[in-house]
């Protein structure tokens, strides 16, 4: 699409910056400025990528890719099945908003760590930029292998970030984080390979190649490549890797540990972006490529997500450490996000993608604020600090603002996504529009209590920290590093853009949704097709004489569009004439329908 390989430049700048920082040994001040400069340059490149993206939104429809570039990285086309490991980048409606969020948050995080990081600046900023590059890589990777490599590569910088600049028992937290995620992603690695191997059976414009290209893998399903059991196993393999990354209920114990120990900027990036890799993975890989399994396991995922929501909220309520509280709140929020994804409804999907962006913004900002408090009072225990509103009114304003955004107050971004997710789950059981998703009302109501619990623990935290009599740990605020009592101009200018983004997304999310919709509809369509087949198999069982009805069915199939199916099914019982007719959809029919 674009002449200039924008995306590769986008990826290269942070990595280049990291190398330069690592190579030269400037004094900390220049390093800081350089790091910030590099991240802002990346932002600039991204803006022009956005410009190009905006022009072409037209052909985004039905899962089109923009700004794609692909060069073969390793290709030995020796014998029968050539090996083509591609380096393919591309952006579409789903990855663009997440990219923008990352591009907004990382420079701010780097800027915020000017005061919080006192030692070994060089490695710190180099690692931050490396992490930045890896994250961008994940979002715009169009090749499963590249996706996996970047997915893995984000682990190292963060491992060191937590390990070196973390809190008290940082090594235990870093180790647990690294090994836990790695163990999960090892299984995913096996899944990736199996998928790549299966993909070679896809005849794509004539040639069959052993490749990991997303588009070919997406075609895999269309050509009926994967049997139901295979899909099920692959779904489980990818589930292992992604579920640990998104702290889904049983696997979330590493998150509070990692957050409490990570330095401010580290936990901002961890919360805002890294958790999203898991959900993004689900959306980008698990849903489209294994739709049968996605539907089959939908209820299981639904239950896990809902338990996650309630569990996270309750656990957050009893915390004494502010950071751990916010960490558990992200467990609860991401439960929502997954719930939205598995309700197989456009509302749910849009809601979950929006949720990823909103959660990133609000929780990222909350962590920044907690970091700022920590820089001043060197404690995160709620019972040691209190009544800060009097001493730090500006900070109080921002804290209340972002709490409201994360609770989901209408008018701010949290509400939009929360409402969409819940309404999607609510109507997920209904069949008359499109097809029924696996989740229904039974999931929506317990999840809705999540909003309630959310308000309770967030306000509990706000009251303990801001209101009530003023309590300060012993020595008052430490004014080293030019920190004034209330937020310095720098800190305010860090939080302000995030606040503006929250308001914009809350009041007028239409442009972002316009991007998302065309990219999400192919995912839904693929799931819809599958559902049709299951539904036939169910009703087909009812048929007595196969031959006669199939002739009739074929004629019906061509004329009827999807919506009449319901009539046929419902009225089937009532009217004696219309024998229970099932519409027989052969795979190529679904092609026609697309």
């Amino acid at each position, binding site marked *: 699409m674009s002449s200039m390989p924008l995306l590769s430049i986008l990826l290269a700048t942070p990595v280049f910056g990291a190398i330069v920082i690592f190579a030269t040994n400037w004094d900390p001040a220049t390093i800081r400025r350089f790091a910030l400069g590099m991240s802002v340059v990346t932002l600039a490149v991204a803006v022009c990528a956005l410009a190009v993206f905006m022009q072409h939104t037209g052909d985004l429809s039905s899962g089109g890719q923009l700004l794609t570039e692909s060069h073969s990285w*390793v*290709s*030995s*086309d*020796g*014998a*029968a*099945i*050539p*090996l083509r490991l591609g380096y393919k980048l591309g952006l579409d409606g789903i990855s663009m908003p997440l990219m923008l969020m990352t591009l907004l948050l990382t420079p701010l995080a780097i800027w915020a760590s000017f005061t919080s990081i006192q030692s070994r600046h060089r490695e710190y900023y180099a690692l931050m930029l490396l992490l930045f590059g890896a994250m961008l890589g994940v979002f715009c990777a169009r090749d499963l292998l590249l996706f*996996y*490599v*970047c997915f*893995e*590569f984000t682990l*190292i910088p963060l*491992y*060191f970030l937590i*390990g*070196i600049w973390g809190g008290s028992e940082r*090594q235990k937290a870093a*180790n647990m984080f*690294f*090994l836990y995620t*790695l*163990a999960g992603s*090892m*299984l995913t*690695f*096996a899944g990736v*390979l*199996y998928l*790549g*191997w299966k993909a070679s059976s896809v005849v794509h414009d004539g040639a069959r190649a*052993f490749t990991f290209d997303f588009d070919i893998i997406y075609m895999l399903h269309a050509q009926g490549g994967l049997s139901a059991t295979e899909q099920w196993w692959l779904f489980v393999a990818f589930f292992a890797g992604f579920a640990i990354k998104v702290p889904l209920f049983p696997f979330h114990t590493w998150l509070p540990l990692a957050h409490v120990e990570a330095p401010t900027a580290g936990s901002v990036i961890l919360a805002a972006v890294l958790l999203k890799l898991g959900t993004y993975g689900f959306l980008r890989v698990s849903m489209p490529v294994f739709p049968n399994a996605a539907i089959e396991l939908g209820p299981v995922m639904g239950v896990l997500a809902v338990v996650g929501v309630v569990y996270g909220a309750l656990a957050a309520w009893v915390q004494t450490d502010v950071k751990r509280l916010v960490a558990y709140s992200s467990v609860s929020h991401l439960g929502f996000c997954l719930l939205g994804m598995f309700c197989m409804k456009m509302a749910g999907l849009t809601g979950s993608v929006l949720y990823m962006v909103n959660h990133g913004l609000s929780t990222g900002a909350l962590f920044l604020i907690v970091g700022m408090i920590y820089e001043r009072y060197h404690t995160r225990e709620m019972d040691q600090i209190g009544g800060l509103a009097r001493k730090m009114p500006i900070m109080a304003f921002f804290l209340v603002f972002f709490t409201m955004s994360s609770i989901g107050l209408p008018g701010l971004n949290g509400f939009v996504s929360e409402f969409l997710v819940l309404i999607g789950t609510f109507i997920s059981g209904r069949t008359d529009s499109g097809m029924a998703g696996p989740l229904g009302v039974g999931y929506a109501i317990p999840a809705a209590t999540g909003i309630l619990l959310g308000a309770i623990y967030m306000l509990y935290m706000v009251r303990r920290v801001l209101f009530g009599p003023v309590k300060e740990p012993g020595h008052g605020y430490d004014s080293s590093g030019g920190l004034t009592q209330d937020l310095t101009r720098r800190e305010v200018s860090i939080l302000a853009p995030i606040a503006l983004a929250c308001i914009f997304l809350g009041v007028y999310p239409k442009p972002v949704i316009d991007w998302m919709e065309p990219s999400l509809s192919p995912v839904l369509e693929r799931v819809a097709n599958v559902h049709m087949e299951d539904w036939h198999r169910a009703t087909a069982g009812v048929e007595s004489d196969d031959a006669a009805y199939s002739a009739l069915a074929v004629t019906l199939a061509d004329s009827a569009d999807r919506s009449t199916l319901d009539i046929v099914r419902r009225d089937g019982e009532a009217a004696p004439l219309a024998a229970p007719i099932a519409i027989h959809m052969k795979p190529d029919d679904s092609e026609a329908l697309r």
Partner: protein
Amino acid sequence: MSAIVELLLPEILLCVGAIGVLFLGLSKEFSSRAVVWSVLFLAGAMFATYKLAIAANGDEVFAVASLHTGPLTHYVRMIAFAIGILVVLACKHVPEAEERGEFFSLILFSFVGLSLTAIANDLVLLFLALELVSVPTYILIGLSRRDIRAQEAAGKYFFLGAFAAALTLYGFSFIYGAAGTMTIFSAGTVPFQQGAYHSIAEWFAAGNVYDRMHDPLLIVGFMLSLGGLAFKLAAVPLHYYVADVYQGAASPITGMLGFVPKFAGLIAIMHLLSIVQWQIADSSVYWGIWIIAAATMTIGNSLAFMQYNVKRMLAYSSVAHSGYLLMALLAGPGASGAGSPLRNGVAAMLFYIAIYGAMNLGAFLVLSWFRKPGTDDSDESAEMLEDLAGAARRHPWASLALAVCILGLMGFPLTGGFLGKLYIFSSVLSATADMQAHQTSLIVLVVIGAINAAVGAAYYLRIIASCYWREPSGKVTTSTCMGLRVALAVCAIVVVLGFAWPGQLIRHSVTAAKEGIDYPRVMRFHTADSHSSHPAESVDLARGRR
């Protein structure tokens, strides 16, 4: 006669070099330049192999009953000599002045042995080559360090090595018993006299696969030799010596120990497997190898998990890696002789062994790079985890190299190790298509491999962590040996290059592997009209001379 000389040119050059270096060692002032000469000779050998490879351009050449060269041998020689140069460079500072001559000549002899195993087409030559590989190493270990542990390591290695050699030989004798001839492959078609076959492969091809595979003699012979070779690989039943020997010897030597015998063992096993044309699917030998591979990986990783001495940890990690390599061999070349390492186990193994050699060597070289005040005045190479503590603070580049090599061993993306593991796992997976009967067991193997990789990550991480996090203990200094620094840099680069630009290496490993598959080409032979004159001439020579 000229053909044989031409074929063996690299080896001959190396032997001459070794002897030359031996003499150089005698005189005081020349001994310092021994290293330079040995590097020169190694480079010469490489160049000769390169010339041979170009000449043969990919097809089989049988000089005499017991020798053959082909893409596989060229690949093996190139890799062997390249690593050889690195080892020699790295060992510059190890031997004392007076023993320098013997030291380097022994290294050269060991590498000659390695390249001979590749060429060997005859059980006898194969065994000789294996011995030539391991005997010098016994002495090298003894020479490498003056303290008592080196002697103990040498002793242990010798006794157990001899024991294993006897085992292998015993196995070979049984194979000979079954087949009746020593040569593995032959180009000739006409059987010498009724009933006798020109080569084991011919014998195997003659009968149908099933009863051949279940010929008792063959099975016993096969398993015994497999056992003996497993010692070289340090596979599980015979892995006991690894930790003590690796800990005893000096780090560069341990680096070489990690690579040379393992590579030789693997080639020997490849020879054995190609005799039976990789048809081990339906025989119980498949399960034998399966168990060895699985056990090696698991036990190797578990033991490594326990260690605090970096050398012992890396020793057990090399055990684990032999497990991965065996797994690749189990996958076999893949029915359709696929063109990519993703489908062809042997190619994956060849690619991975090359990368592994560099990684392993790199890791040990870094260890020898960090010196700590040893018991007597001469400083010791770092061993315990504490020695590495906080190394990153003062020597960022060296610890970066260590981190790169360790990440490679772990199989982390952006290092050759990742690609290696990728190829091995995917070739095993694609092998499921070929051997339907073993579909589940192969997938289980991959899962075990994946879990082991994760466990492996745990203890590798500990090394990196101690480098980067612990406070520097202050007494760690670095050695000044230039050669070591160059070798270290080259290893680290090779590991990273393995990921960034693996195309070339893959192409070579694939062609080499392909050649490995067509071994049982008793039927196929070079007709007179084959294109280039040179090989035809050598074929007549082979036929003629019988």
